[in-house]
C-alpha cells in the first residue's frame, strides 16, 4: 500500500504541489486558471510557529476519522490500496469529516461550499500522485508501507 511521505525540511514553499493537484482535479469544462475559485488543491503548505514550511497532504489514515464521522457513506476506504475515497454523490454536506480530520487537510469546496475537497491519490492518473511528480525539492515521495 502506497502513501505520500513528507520531508518537511526539504520543502521550499514553491506551491508546485498545489498547482499540480489543481491541474489533476480540474472539473469538466473548466480550463486551468490561477484565479478560478472552482480549482482547488487537495494539499496545502502552512507555516509553523517558527515560520518553517509545513506541507500537509492527506495521510489516508489506517483508522480514518473522516470515515468514522461520515454518516452518509461518502467516505470509504479501499481495502486493496488503503486509500480513502470521497464520493460527492453520497455526501450530505455536513462537513463532520472536515471537523474531525486530525491533520486539518479536508475542507469544504471554496466555490459552492457543498462538497469536500479530498485527496484521491490521483486514482484517475494511475494512482501516481501529481504533487509528488511536480515537487522539485523531493520534499514528498511515495513509499510502500
Amino acid at each position, binding site marked *: 500500500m502506497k502513501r505520500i511521505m513528507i520531508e518537511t525540511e526539504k520543502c*521550499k*514553499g*514553491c*506551491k508546485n504541489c498545489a498547482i499540480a493537484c489543481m491541474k489533476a482535479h480540474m472539473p469538466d469544462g473548466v480550463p486551468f486558471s490561477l484565479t478560478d475559485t472552482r480549482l482547488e488543491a487537495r494539499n496545502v*503548505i*502552512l*507555516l509553523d510557529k517558527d515560520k518553517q*514550511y509545513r506541507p500537509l497532504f492527506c495521510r489516508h489514515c489506517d483508522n480514518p476519522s473522516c470515515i468514522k464521522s461520515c454518516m452518509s457513506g461518502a467516505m470509504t476506504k479501499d481495502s486493496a490500496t488503503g486509500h480513502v475515497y470521497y464520493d460527492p454523490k453520497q455526501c450530505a454536506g455536513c462537513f463532520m469529516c472536515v471537523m474531525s480530520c486530525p491533520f486539518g487537510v479536508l475542507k469544504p469546496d471554496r466555490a459552492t461550499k457543498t462538497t469536500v475537497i479530498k485527496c484521491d491519490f490521483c486514482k484517475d492518473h494511475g494512482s501516481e500522485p501529481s504533487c509528488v511528480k511536480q515537487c*522539485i*525539492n*523531493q520534499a514528498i515521495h511515495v513509499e510502500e508501507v
Partner: protein
Amino acid sequence: MTQRFSCTTCLSADKPLERFVADLPMETSFHRVETQEVKCEFGLQGCCCRLCANGPCRITPDSPKGICGADADTLVARNFLRAVAAGSGCYIHVVENAARALKDIAKEKGALKGLKALDRLCAKLEVSGSDIYEKAEKAADAVLADLYRPVFEKMELTKKLAYAPRYEKWEALGLLPGGAKSEVFAGTVKSSTNLNSDPVDMLLHCLRLGISTGLYGLMMTNMLNDIIQGEPEIRFASVGMRVIDPDYINIMITGHQHALFAHLQNRLTDDDIVKQAQAVGAKGFKLVGCTCVGQDLQLRAAHAVGLFDGHAGNNFTSEAILATGAIDAVLTEFNCTLPGIEPICDALKIKQICLDTIAKKANAQTMQYGFESRESDANSIISDIIEAYKVRRNDVPLNLLPEHGNDNTLTGLSEVTLKSFLGETWQPLIELIATGKIKGLAAVVGCSNLVSGGHDVLTVELTKELIAKDILVLTAGCSSGGIENCGLMTPEAAELAGPSLKAVCQSLGIPPVLNFGPCLAIGRLELIAVEIAEALGVDLPQLPLVLSAPQWLEEQALADGAFALALGLPLHLGLPPFVTGSPIAVQVLCEDMKQLTGGHVMINGDAAESAVLMEEIIMQKRKDLNLA
C-alpha cells in the same frame, strides 16, 4: 452595525489603526497578508529565473544551474540588478519631472517659493544668471543635461554634489555614473538574457546606480522641489487620521512628485475656487497627506496654509484613510499607490485622477500633467472633484477615527532647518556626540511593509530600542509616517529615550526621533552627514552613523540602499533583498563591501538584536575617532 470583512488582519505598531482596519467591512492589504503567508523559497532567495523560454529555472542541490548554465550567483545578481535599475529609474523619473517643472516655471517667470534654496543650488552647481529665472532655468538645464547623457559620458554635476573623499573613492573604484537614465538602461540590458554573468560586475553596477539615484533622484529632487514649493519650516503639526476634516472637500495625494501639482495646490485656495466649494456645501478644499508626497507637504506646510491639513499616514495606511469615507478624490502622481485602493474608491465613489501615466490606475481618469495646460487641467480636476463630492457625500457614511495620531509631532526638519535650529552650526550636535550625551546617529529610513512583524512593527520597535540606547534617530520615508503616528516624534517621547538622550531632548524641547519627511529626504540626511564629516575632517564611513531600512518594501528602497553602500555606511535591513541564494552576493554585500566603499549590509528581523548590532558599530566608530 457593519460586518467585518474578515478577522485575519495583520498587526500594526499603530494600535488604533490596527483596530480600525480589523473592523472595516472592506478588504485591505492588512487582510491579504495571511493568504499570502507562504512564500516560495526560490523567490525569497532570488534563485528563480524567468528571463527566457527555458524557464522558470530554479536552483536546487540537484539542479544547481539553469538550463543556460547560469548558477545561483548569476541568477541572484541579475535579479538584484534589475530591481535596483527599476528602483533607480523611479527616482530618476521624479527628478527629471522636477527639473522640467522648474525649467517651465522659470521660462514663464512663474512663482518660485524657495529663493534661498535656489541660491544654494546655484552656488553648488556654479550657475549664475541675471535674475532668479535665468538662474533657475540654467540649474534645471544642467540637471537635465546630466540625466540625458549617454552611459559613456560621466555626469558633470556628480563632483559638485558629492563629498570630495567619496568622489575620489568612487573614481578610484570606477563607480562614477554616466547619464542617470542611461545607467538604468545599461542595468536593464546587462541583466537581460544571456548577457552579463559576472555577479561582482553586476553588484558594482548597482553601486553606480546608487550614486546617481542618491545624488540626483534624492538630493537634487529635494533641492528642486524646495525652489518650486518652498523650503521646510520647523513646526508642530497634527498627524494621523485626526487631520481629516469632513467639512471640506478632501483630496488625498499619493506619490513622490510635489513639483507636479504646484499650480493645482496654489489654485485650490483661490477665492473663486473656494466659492465653488462653498456653493456645494463644503467650507473649501483640503489636501490630506498620504505616502511620501504627504510627508513632503508636511515639511513645506508653511507654504500651503489653510490647504494642507496634515499627514494622515504612510503607504499601507492609505486604504484606511479612504475607508473613513471623508476623502472625495485621490490624486495619483507616482508610487506608493496601492492597487488595493481601487475597489475601495469604487465602493465609496471616490474620484481617482492620475497626474502621471507612469502611475495610471486601472479605474482612474488620466490627466497627464503638462505645464502648458496646467490652468485648464487644474480647473477641470477641481470641477470633477466637486462633482464627486456632490454625488457621494450624502450617500457614503463617514467612519472617522478622530483619536488616531497626535497634535504635537515635530516636523519640517531639513539639512537647513536643523542647522538653523542649532544656531547655524553643527557644533552643538557634534559636541553632544563627542561628549557621549548622544552616542551616535541612526537613520531609520525607507518604507513600511506588512511582513516584518506587521505594519511598522519592526520600524517602531527598532526605533524605541535605538533611542533607549541614547542614539538619536533621524527618519525619511514611510518610516516617518508610521513612527509619527505612533507618537515617537512628540517631545513627550523623550521619556522613552535613554537617560542622556532624554536630558538632551528635554532641554531642547525636541523628540528623540527627528522627522525629515519623505524617502527623498534620505538625500537631506546625506547632506547632514557630509556637513558633519566635513566639520570633523573625516570621511562618511568614520562617522558614528548607521542606517536602517527595517521595513524596506520596494525596488526604490533597494536603489536607496545601493546609495548607502556607495556612501560607505552600515546598512541594516529587516528582510533580505532576495539575494541569499548567492554566496557571492552575500559575501560582497555583507563583507567585501567594507573593503570597497566602507559600507556593508546586515540583515536581522529582530528589533532588539538589530539595535545591539547597530550600537556596536556606533561604539566601534566612536572608538576609532577616539571618542569616549
